[in-house]
């Protein structure tokens, strides 16, 4: 056909980390003058592929050809010199230096070893003008918005005579008009023949700007498609790993405990709560004994919503009512005082302290709630811990071993026990089943159902749609950092319908 030869061809790429095959024979190619989106859920291998391409990781198999020549990069610098430039999600520049310096540092024009500042400033201004950006190049970078900083990073990248430009989630901290500006620049570079690899979690953005899409799942290549020939719903299906047909065949969920629910006054009501750049204002009511599920793709604002409710981030609009009275969720401590518990997504870095024992980890939140001046008697600690180890079936059942020796699923249960022991009225669990085995998953789901039967309200955040469908009374669907739909989880709600909403933003 009329396709030009690929500027970059990766074939059969394998990358193995201890115990995990991160990339399993992935093929990927970039044509000159195209914007190519790389899609996949968390853990699909997107960032590994990018790191292989930029020389951060070596490869265990396969080959990379750049402009028809075999290459193997040993570091970001070599990749840059070969014409592969990367702009990362967080701006990797030196904010204390001027705009011009950030573009040219390391490659400043010199005469007799002396930097020619005037020429550098002139060339940076020219370069930025090409990107339609009119800023004072002598001002320090930190006087400009993130969007401008992002553009400066791009200016630096393309001045290194880039053939391939990798944009790794460049839009995650930009607002709509800034995104539009970035896209204009991307199109212009594409028309100039640069091959652009674009990663974003925003489906609309992908469909707005990308020419082709490559989908990865679990380290394997699912396929390469023209954007115009791949409807959004099919893309979501390919990313999540369920073809529509299969989803339609799923039998209805056994929601034995969840059918009749008397709703009175809501336990918690969020009214127009929002935070710029994290989640658009939303209204949400949670009742006692209710499981509310948050569905949406990674980056759709699931975690951000939960963090606002817990006071982990500060809302810049709206308010929260509990039991009909407005409360200020100024900090996680305030939220805990109101009976809200938050079991976080990242059990290793945010939740558990690996060196402490199971007992100490479980007692931590209760002790914090009481204040450190009133220690909990050892006997009471032992009783409480023994009770929850039994209830949650934590294995091994020895309370004195360090938590880091437990499996992922059991660590998750320890984290859950820590919050349950404080007897919260509302339990927020973010991704409780990520990275744990099927058996442990089932147990945690059973536990959530039991807790809600016992009168606890649960906000359940999970990337796995089926899990959300199985457990929730009510499903809040998020898309592109906006709460787009609330669904009562009655018989006619299925994964297909939720996926349509995630893909299109509207009820089908």
């Amino acid at each position, binding site marked *: 056909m009329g396709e030009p030869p690929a500027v970059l061809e990766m074939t059969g790429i394998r990358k193995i980390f201890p115990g995990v095959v991160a990339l399993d024979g992935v093929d990927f190619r970039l044509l000159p003058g195209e914007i190519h989106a790389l899609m996949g859920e968390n853990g699909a291998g997107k960032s590994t592929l990018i790191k292989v391409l930029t020389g951060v990781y070596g490869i265990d198999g396969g080959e990379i050809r750049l402009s028809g020549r075999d290459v193997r990069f040993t570091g970001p610098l070599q990749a840059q010199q070969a014409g592969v430039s990367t702009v990362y999600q967080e701006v990797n520049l*030196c*904010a204390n*230096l001027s705009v011009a310096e950030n573009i040219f*540092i390391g490659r400043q024009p010199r005469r007799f070893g*002396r930097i020619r500042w005037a020429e550098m400033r002139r060339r940076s201004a020219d370069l930025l003008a090409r990107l339609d950006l009119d800023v004072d190049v002598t001002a320090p970078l930190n006087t400009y918005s993130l*969007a*401008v900083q992002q553009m400066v990073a791009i200016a630096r990248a393309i001045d290194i005579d880039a053939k391939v430009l990798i944009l790794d989630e460049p839009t995650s901290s930009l607002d709509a008009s800034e995104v539009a500006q970035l896209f204009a620049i991307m199109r212009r570079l594409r028309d100039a023949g640069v091959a652009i690899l674009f990663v974003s979690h925003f489906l609309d953005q992908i469909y707005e700007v990308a020419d082709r899409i490559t989908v990865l799942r679990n380290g394997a290549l699912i396929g390469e498609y023209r954007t115009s020939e791949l409807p959004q719903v099919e893309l979501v299906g390919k990313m999540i790993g369920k073809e529509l047909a299969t989803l339609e065949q799923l039998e209805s969920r056994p929601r034995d405990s969840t059918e009749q629910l008397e709703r009175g006054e809501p336990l918690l009501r969020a009214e127009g709560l929002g935070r710029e750049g994290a989640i658009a204002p939303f209204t949400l009511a949670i009742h006692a004994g209710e499981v509310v599920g948050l569905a949406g793709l990674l980056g759709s604002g699931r975690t951000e919503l939960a963090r606002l409710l817990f006071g982990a981030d500060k809302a810049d609009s709206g308010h929260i009512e509990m039991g009909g009275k407005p409360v200020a969720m100024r900090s996680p401590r305030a939220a805990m005082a109101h009976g809200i518990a938050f079991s976080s997504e990242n059990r290793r870095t945010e939740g558990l302290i690996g060196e402490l024992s199971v007992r100490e980890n479980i007692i931590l939140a209760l002790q914090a709630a009481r204040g450190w001046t009133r220690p909990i008697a050892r006997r009471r600690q032992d009783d409480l811990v023994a009770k929850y180890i039994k209830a949650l079936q934590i294995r091994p059942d020895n309370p004195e071993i360090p938590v880091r020796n437990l499996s992922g699923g059991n660590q998750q249960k320890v984290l859950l026990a820590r919050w349950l022991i404080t007897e919260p009225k509302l339990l927020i669990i973010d991704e409780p089943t990520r990275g744990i085995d099927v058996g442990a998953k089932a147990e945690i789901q059973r536990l959530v159902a039991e807790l809600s039967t016992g009168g606890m309200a649960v906000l359940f955040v999970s990337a796995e749609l089926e899990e959300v469908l199985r457990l929730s009374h009510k499903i809040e669907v998020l898309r592109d950092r906006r709460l787009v739909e609330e669904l009562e989880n009655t018989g006619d709600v299925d994964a297909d319908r939720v996926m349509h909403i995630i893909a299109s933003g509207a009820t089908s």
Partner: protein
Amino acid sequence: MIDVSTTPATNKSGPAAGRRRTYRPNAQYIPVLATLTLLIVMYTLGAVNYENFTHPSVILNLFTDNAFLMVVAVGMTFVILTGGIDLSVGAVIALTSTVAATLLQAGWPAGVVIPTVLLVGGVLGLGMGAVIHFFKVEPFIATLAGMFLARGVALLIDQNSIPITNGFWTGLAEARIVFEPGVYISAMALVALAVVAVAAVVLAWSRFGRNVYAIGGNADSALLMGLPVGRTRIGVYTLSGFCAALGGLIYSITTTSGYAGHGTGTELDAIAAVVIGGVLLTGGSGYVLGTVLGVLVLGMINTIVNFQSLNSWWARMAIGVLLFAFIVLQRLVTRRAK
């Protein structure tokens, strides 16, 4: 020069157009300007309160008396600009003055002793820089070790003060440009000013200098931008060691002696001068000129304390108060920049 005609979409957190109309100095210059103002205020206070304070020799003596500190502080400026610290400089003064005095006593010619001593300082700095970079040791710890090592070696060589009688040394000690009787600038002060000039040029006009700022701003980014982070970081400690050795030479010349007790606490004076001069302790912002002003402020405090015939602890207290004030000022300036 200042152009604010950015499109509104991109100028969200940029400098507000309205405020630009009145003159506002670049936030990076504020600490230096503050130090300059302070120096002028101190001088005016001195001139009003004391007789003979306005005599030109008062100012010229500031340079002469603090020549060694100025050289050491210049090296320290490079280190602190990268976000590091060098505690070994005072001990290096002790070591180099002792080595120089011992070698001169043994009959070595000055032309050999000077490069040897400078080499010793540079190599010590190189070693500390290498340890900091390759073994990821905190600069505080690595240079603390260097400090003990240098002072220990100096004491091992000789525990007593060694007088220097070498003709070249005593000649340099007396070398000066006399403007009128009693008004002169010493050769050592000129050496210090030359070091300052070279350092200023290197920081502003060379790739090495700009890399120093980049590393202080964000070392991880600097690495991803493909800058030679390791080479630069080792380079600044080598430079600081070299400057400390040169400072030691100047010290041995002005005192015509070598002694393992020389330079006690100089590292802290140098750090104080650099910070008062407006260099950010976390790195990435500051100027050599600021450091010079910082050294002059310290010198001016001592001068005023002398004129007032107070005890020298008053000088220490004043330095303490100033340090505190300047660190708070830096915090305020950086907070507003964000």
